[in-house]
């Protein structure tokens, strides 16, 4: 039976009069990757801070692995790994020194820093000072640091933000490896492609409220529409685009008419992206 790794109930937090997180509730199962999506200022970071014990909820509670975060933050923090969006490594220390420091603080015995360095693709650079690393290398080291205690729950805040495709793909692979190990992953991201590929479920947060929470497939079925996009040669010889919305009664007739009346050059099916669905639900984009 699947256990609940993260349970949030009526979490609420306000900065003065600004209600950053407004009475949100959700569960994340053990071994699940949950995508937490929303534009800047939606309340993602405040939620993560409450879940990781950095902020005490003003209302509601969060339980990680059955432990109340607000009353036993250190017990929770010993079992989680957090990768921040902003680089907060010790720049004057080497990559290996950074990892060893945190492993010691977590009380990890027989920690193999070079192996972890190799695993995140920094082989040969572990002894270099972090200040000499590129942005992608620093991000990989941040991810590695989140792994040092083999956490049961991983919080990853925009782990691939601003990275080149190779680095981003390497990090996505690492996330899937951690899930395979049994870790639960709470992934905060703007990247719809990433969320779609990695997450079993995604939660949309907007203005402090969770406005949708489901599997990407269910969300697309519920909110999105599939279309056929065709390029045809018009009567005047020009190339034109035709769109036919699928899953309607009229659809078969419209497709037949298309092939009978016009010369079809290309034909593609398209489905709504998570971004489209977010816009449809909230009326605004994710990167606003």
């Amino acid at each position, binding site marked *: 039976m699947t256990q609940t790794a993260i349970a949030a109930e009526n979490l609420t937090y306000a900065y003065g009069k600004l209600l950053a997180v407004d009475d949100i509730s959700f569960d994340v199962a053990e071994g699940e990757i949950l995508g937490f999506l929303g534009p800047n200022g939606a309340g993602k970071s405040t939620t993560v801070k409450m879940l*990781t*014990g*950095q*902020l*005490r909820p003003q209302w509601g509670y969060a339980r990680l692995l059955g432990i109340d975060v607000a009353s036993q*933050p*250190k017990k929770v*923090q*010993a079992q*989680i790994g*957090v990768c*921040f969006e*902003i680089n*907060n*490594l*010790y*720049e*004057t*220390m080497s990559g290996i020194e950074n990892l060893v*420091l*945190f492993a*010691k*603080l*977590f*009380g990890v015995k027989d920690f193999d820093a070079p192996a972890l360095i190799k695993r995140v693709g920094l082989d040969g650079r572990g002894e270099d000072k972090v200040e000499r690393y590129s942005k992608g290398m620093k991000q990989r080291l941040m991810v590695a*640091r989140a792994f040092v205690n083999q956490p049961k729950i991983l919080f990853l805040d925009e782990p691939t933000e601003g990275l080149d495709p190779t680095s981003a793909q390497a990090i996505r692979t690492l996330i899937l490896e951690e899930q395979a190990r049994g870790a639960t992953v709470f992934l905060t991201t703007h990247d719809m492609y990433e969320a779609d590929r990695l997450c079993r479920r995604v939660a949309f947060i907007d203005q402090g409220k969770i406005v949708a929470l489901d599997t990407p497939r269910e969300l697309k079925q519920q909110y999105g529409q599939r279309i056929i996009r065709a390029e045809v040669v018009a009567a005047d010889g020009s190339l034109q685009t035709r769109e036919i919305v699928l899953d309607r009664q009229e659809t078969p007739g419209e497709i037949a008419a298309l092939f009978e009346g016009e010369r079809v050059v290309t034909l593609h099916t398209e489905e709504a992206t998570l971004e489209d669905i977010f816009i449809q639900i909230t009326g605004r984009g994710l990167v606003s």
Partner: protein
Amino acid sequence: MKLRRVGILLFRELVQGPKSFIFIFAVVVPLALTLAVTLIFGTLFSEKPRLGIVDAGSSQFTESATATDAFTVHAYASETDLRDATARGSVHIGVVLPPDFDARVAVGEATTMVVYVWGESQLRDRAALAAAISGWVRHIAGQESPVRIVTSVLGDPVVLPWEERLLPFVVMMGVILGGMMIPASSLVTEKQEQTLTALAITPVTMGEVFVAKGLVGVIISTLMGMIILALNRALGDGTVLLAGILLLGAIFSAEAGVLMGILIKDINALFATVKVIGLLLYAPALIYMFLEIPQWIARIFPTYYMIQPVIEVSQHGAQLSDVMGQLIVLLALIAVLGGVLALSERRQRNAG
């Protein structure tokens, strides 16, 4: 609080600390200032000639010696102690008086006075002490000097030499820069670079972080204080007492530094704050420099209780009992700051 984690954080601070500008500044500036002043004035500390006495018979010689302000007099229990003290420079000249010294001198019988001279002492100190010893012996023998010396002091008789006036300032700089600035800047930098947030999401508590950073300040501050005293040959018989006083001063400074680190958000604000409160921190030293200012005013400032015992012991040969009152005030200040820090840590824990 786990000592193991404090040790890990302390080790990181000690290894990485010397790479920071403020760490270097805190170590180099007081040393450079000490060396510069030492070059100009010779030494910062009182150069009253120091006389050591082993007196087995309650001689008038000892009474006469201790009655004068011109010398610093230390009594020793045995000739071995006196020899050791002279060899390490605690006294410039050491005198051993036999039990029947006064009786023999009074009746004109031959007797022996063993005198040890510290090899590195200056000729002026030896000469002054030799002349005084001769006078005291003549007094015991009942001989009046054939010459009456009429002395007139010219210039301002109460003015302290500048090397003595500068002493508290240099010692305070060593103790305060190391003790206060190193923990404060380290905490503020970690806040600015958000490494403190990374530490906060580990089993490490903020209390452990504060203790580790404070300990670095305590270690550097105490060491700097001892080095400055040693450079000025002020470590003598009171070395252990001075180390203890400096340690208390360092703890007080480090607590203040950690508190500043908690309250201040960025390094620019830290420097601005230090500029503003610098005058208050160094006020006792500045007051000591200018004798026109009533000296009691210095007692208003907390740092007075940190520096005055050092001056009393190193300059005037004071013992623990002489400075106990000041140390009790210093301990009370340490307890108050410790309480404020504990409250701050608790507040942060409740917010987090």
